[in-house]
Structure formats: structure tokens, C-alpha cells
């Protein structure tokens, strides 16, 4: 536990000592800020129209702003995750610092979890910017905080799974670009798998659709914790980290 934290802290300071973290945070803040501004604008226009017509639509900040924005975040996150994980092991392998970690009295799993945790924390920092935007809703509106909290939980779980996959891919190469590109490919695949739901009757389509990380986010976006979705994400996290551990072990036999 202590070692995990030492590794995690070191990784975080690496992220924040280089431009990586700031670049990601800035880009994410801009993109999300645009989404927020956009959907807030629609919401305001819709509510003004409603007032002018004197009709009573049901307007909900949660349903009309927070939920679509969380869904957007879950997709935008797919693009950021490769950039977070690509360096985790690839860089250590290239510079040889992996030898330091592997010859220190630390278990492989402590190294892996430490690195993965640091990636998750960086992702959580990205989410802080979304929270900053949502804070305005709480200041001027009256949204329910519980679905939002569940949404964040879902985002973290989803990112946890993808980050674990990215961590695994990063152990396979010493080239960060390859690690990043491969992770990006996998993330995209796991997103677009959800598009086959049109062929719902076929078994293969059902399987692919089930594998998509985005479909499993729907329930969280609604503010519902579905155990099957939570278990799906937890399984992905476990498998990702498990394969990372196996890969580190085989690295020793091969290298």
C-alpha cells in the first residue's frame, strides 16, 4: 500500500512536472467549456420559448444539461485516455528506469496499481473542470446533485477500465507513440461497437454492443447505479490490470 502510494505520487509529479498534465487539462477545459456553453444556450433558448408561448414543458437541468454533458464527457474522455496512459511503462522501458523499479523491493502489482491510480487521479483532475462548470448550475439553478454524483462515479469507473487497458498496452512497447495509437484504437473500437445496436437481433451485434464501454454508461448518466454496468467496468479494470501484471512478468522472461 505504501509502495503503491510512493509510485503513484512520483507518477503524478511527473505528469505535473512536464507540460503533459497542463496541456491535457487546458484542452479538456476548452472542449468541455464549449459543450457546456452550447447546451446551456439551448436550454436558455428553450426556456425562453416556453415562456413566450405560455406552454408548460417540463424543463429539467438534470435531464437537459447534465445528462447529455456527462455522455459527451464519457466520449471525449476516450480521446484523452491514450494520452494519459501511453507513457506509463513505455517511457520507463525506453529510458531504462524500469530496471530501477524492477530491482527495488516492490511488488509488480504495487507498481502497476500505483501507475494506474495516478492516471485515474489525472483523469479525475480533468473532471474537476466539468465540476467547475456544473457549479454554475447549482449557483443559478436547482439541479439534483445525486444523479450528477452517480454520473461522476460512472465516468471514473469507465475511465478506470480504459486506463487499465491503456496501462497494459503501454507495457507492450517502448515507443510511446505506438502505445498511444494502439490505446486510442482500442478506445475508439470500444466506443463504436455501440453503433451496431441497429442489428440488435443478431447475437454478434448484441455481444459487440455489450462490449462497448459507452452503452454501459447510459444508466450512470441517468443517475442510476446498475449493478451489471458497474460490474462490467470493474471487470474491465481487473482484466486490464491483470494483463498488465502478466505482461510485466513476461517482459522479464523475454527482455
Amino acid at each position, binding site marked *: 500500500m505504501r509502495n503503491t502510494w*510512493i509510485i503513484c505520487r512520483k507518477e503524478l509529479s511527473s505528469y505535473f512536472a512536464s507540460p503533459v498534465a497542463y496541456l491535457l487539462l487546458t484542452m479538456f477545459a476548452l472542449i468541455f467549456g464549449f459543450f457546456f456553453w452550447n447546451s446551456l444556450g439551448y436550454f436558455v433558448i428553450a426556456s425562453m420559448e416556453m415562456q413566450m408561448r405560455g406552454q408548460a414543458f417540463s424543463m429539467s437541468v438534470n435531464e437537459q444539461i447534465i445528462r447529455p454533458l456527462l455522455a459527451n464527457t464519457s466520449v471525449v474522455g476516450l480521446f484523452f485516455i491514450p494520452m494519459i496512459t501511453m507513457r506509463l511503462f513505455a517511457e520507463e522501458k525506453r529510458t531504462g528506469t524500469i530496471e*530501477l523499479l524492477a530491482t527495488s523491493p516492490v511488488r509488480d502489482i504495487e507498481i502497476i496499481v500505483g501507475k494506474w491510480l495516478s492516471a485515474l487521479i489525472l483523469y479525475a483532475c480533468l473532471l474537476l473542470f466539468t465540476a467547475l462548470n456544473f457549479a454554475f448550475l447549482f449557483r443559478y439553478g436547482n439541479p439534483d446533485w445525486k444523479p450528477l454524483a452517480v454520473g461522476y462515479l460512472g465516468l471514473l469507473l469507465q475511465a478506470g477500465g480504459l486506463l487499465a487497458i491503456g496501462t497494459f498496452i503501454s507495457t507492450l512497447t517502448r515507443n510511446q507513440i505506438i502505445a498511444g495509437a494502439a490505446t486510442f484504437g482500442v478506445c475508439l473500437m470500444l466506443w463504436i461497437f455501440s453503433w451496431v445496436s441497429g442489428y440488435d437481433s443478431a447475437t454478434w451485434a448484441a455481444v459487440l454492443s455489450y462490449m462497448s464501454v459507452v452503452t454501459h454508461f447510459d444508466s450512470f448518466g441517468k443517475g442510476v447505479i446498475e449493478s451489471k454496468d458497474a460490474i462490467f467496468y470493474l471487470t474491465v479494470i481487473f482484466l486490464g490490470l491483470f494483463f498488465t501484471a502478466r505482461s510485466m512478468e513476461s517482459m*522479464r522472461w523475454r527482455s
Partner: protein
Amino acid sequence: MITVKDLTRGYAHTVAVNQVSFSVAKGQIVGFLGPNGAGKTTTMRMLTCFLPPSSGTATVAGFDVLEQPLEVKKRIGYLPETPPIYPEMATVEYLRFVGSLKGLSGTDLDKRVDYVVGRCSVADVKKKLLGKLSKGYRQRVGLAQAIIHNPDVLILDEPTAGLDPKQINETRDLIKDLAGDHTIILSTHILPEVEQTCQQVIIINKGRVVATDSVENLQSRGRNAETMVLEVASRSGPLEVARIEQRLKQVAGVSRVSIKNKYDSRAVFETESLMGELKRGDLARVIVESGWDLNELRPASMSLEEIFLQLTGGDPAAQTAEAKPGAAAPGQGESSAAEEPHA
């Protein structure tokens, strides 16, 4: 302190280390000598638990590298060939990170960081980013991280590679200083380095141990033939090289004379003789009494290549040397030789 038995490690198509056996007593400095690609790094990586051996066993401080890697790692300080540094970290930050990784914390960690900073003379660059340091400083920081947890065993892979002569000397002094408290294995392909720092040498070639011996024995074994280098100058006018050559040949014990270099008024000669058959004084007297000046007279040091050729049987004259009882064949009698205490 370290016992290695029949250690073997293969890669996909090659055997990098083949049935290597040796042992190292506590407090010794052992040089791991061999050309590039001989299997030095692979052996060291197995000792540090970075690579698992394909077969054979190695124990460090009584712990097996396969069975109890964590215990072994606690007792080993390792400096790989390229210092394992994070360029974006500052020196002290890095040392604190490594220290805590090795299990230090609190005031212990503070003390050890202060100690290694002083010991390895990196105080000037305490706050600097490692990526901005010169090769010499990086090497020292690498050494500092290796000794930060005061390990019983230090494993240094080519610790002086790429340093300038002054830094090389400093590093060697530091390593010699560290012996006693620590058992040290260092690898190198530079013979003088072994002569200067180590008490014990393990020569490795193509994955096999070809000799394990003390430095003195190794040198004398290499020198059953002795080569002397002389520089002779004339007092006035050109030098009569042929006459000098003749005179040198007449000295008792000299079996061959060759001219290495010829200048206007001076020349460099080499004489060969069997070990102990030649009195150096005779050489000097002959030159001086004939009216020439003797600028220099020294034994030619044996290069690693020569010793190497001898030990690996590349040179016909060496076959006999290898067959001598003093020359340990791989796999036998090494452990006992290695355990002999040396001053």
C-alpha cells in the same frame, strides 16, 4: 555473500550466460571482466532479480533470487549501465523517491539522502533537474541511488563508462571507499580498472567463466613472458639503431628485440624475455655504458586482449598457460579460489 551456481540464461536463440558459477566473500570488490556481449549485464541482472535465470541458482546474503526476490532486492544496490534516472526530477527529489522505494522513511530517509549527497559529491546539483546534468553527475547520482539504503551488496554495471579521466578516478576511489561495508561486484571491459579497484577478478567470455582469480595471480599468469619497453637517445648526432639492437640482444635473458619507433635522435625498443630471467639493471647498464641515454625503461603492461586471448585459447602460446594448474577451468575449483581472503 553471493553464491552463484550453474547460472544459465538463454534468450530466444542464444545462450547469454552458460553455467556460470562463482562466489564472493563479504566485503570484497570483485571485477567482472569481459568484452561486450560476454554476458556480464545478463548475469548482473539475474543477481538483482531483474531477470529470472533459466536454470541454476543464485543466492545473495543467503536469499535465493527466485524464491525470495523481495529479500534479495532489499539487500542489493544496483547501478545499471545507463543510470536509471528520471530527467524531469531534481536530484534530491529523485534520491528521496528511490530511498522511499527501498523502504526508507522519515528521518532515516533525510539522513541517508544527506549522506549520499555528500558521499557522491552531488551537493552542487541538489536542486537541478537530472535531465540537465552532465554524464559525470548522472553517474554519481546513479551511484548515490544505489547506496541510498545502505545495501549489503552493490552491483555496478560499468560504473566508469563514458566518464572523463578525472571522474573515472573519483568514481574508482569512491568505489574503493565503499568496500568493506559493502560487497561490490562491478563489471568492466577495462583491465586497469580491475587492477586499480578490485581484489578478485572473474573473467567471462561468451557466457562462460574462463577464469576466477585474484588480480595479482592473473597478472603474473599473463606474464610468463615479460616485455620491457626502452627509450634510448643519443647524446649527440643521429642514433645508431642497429648497434643498440645488437647490444640489447646480447643482454642475458633477452630472447627478442624489436624496434617500435624511430626518431632522429631517439628510438623505442621492446625486449622480450621469460619471466624472471632478465635483470632490468642489465638493460640499463648496457645502454648507459655504451654512451647512450636511457630515457625510459618500463615493463609493458599486458592488455586485456592479450590476457583474454591467452585465457580463451586464442593464442597457441597460451594453451599451455591455460593447462597450468593455476588457471582455473570453468566450473571447477573457482568457488574455493574466490573465497580466499585478499589484502
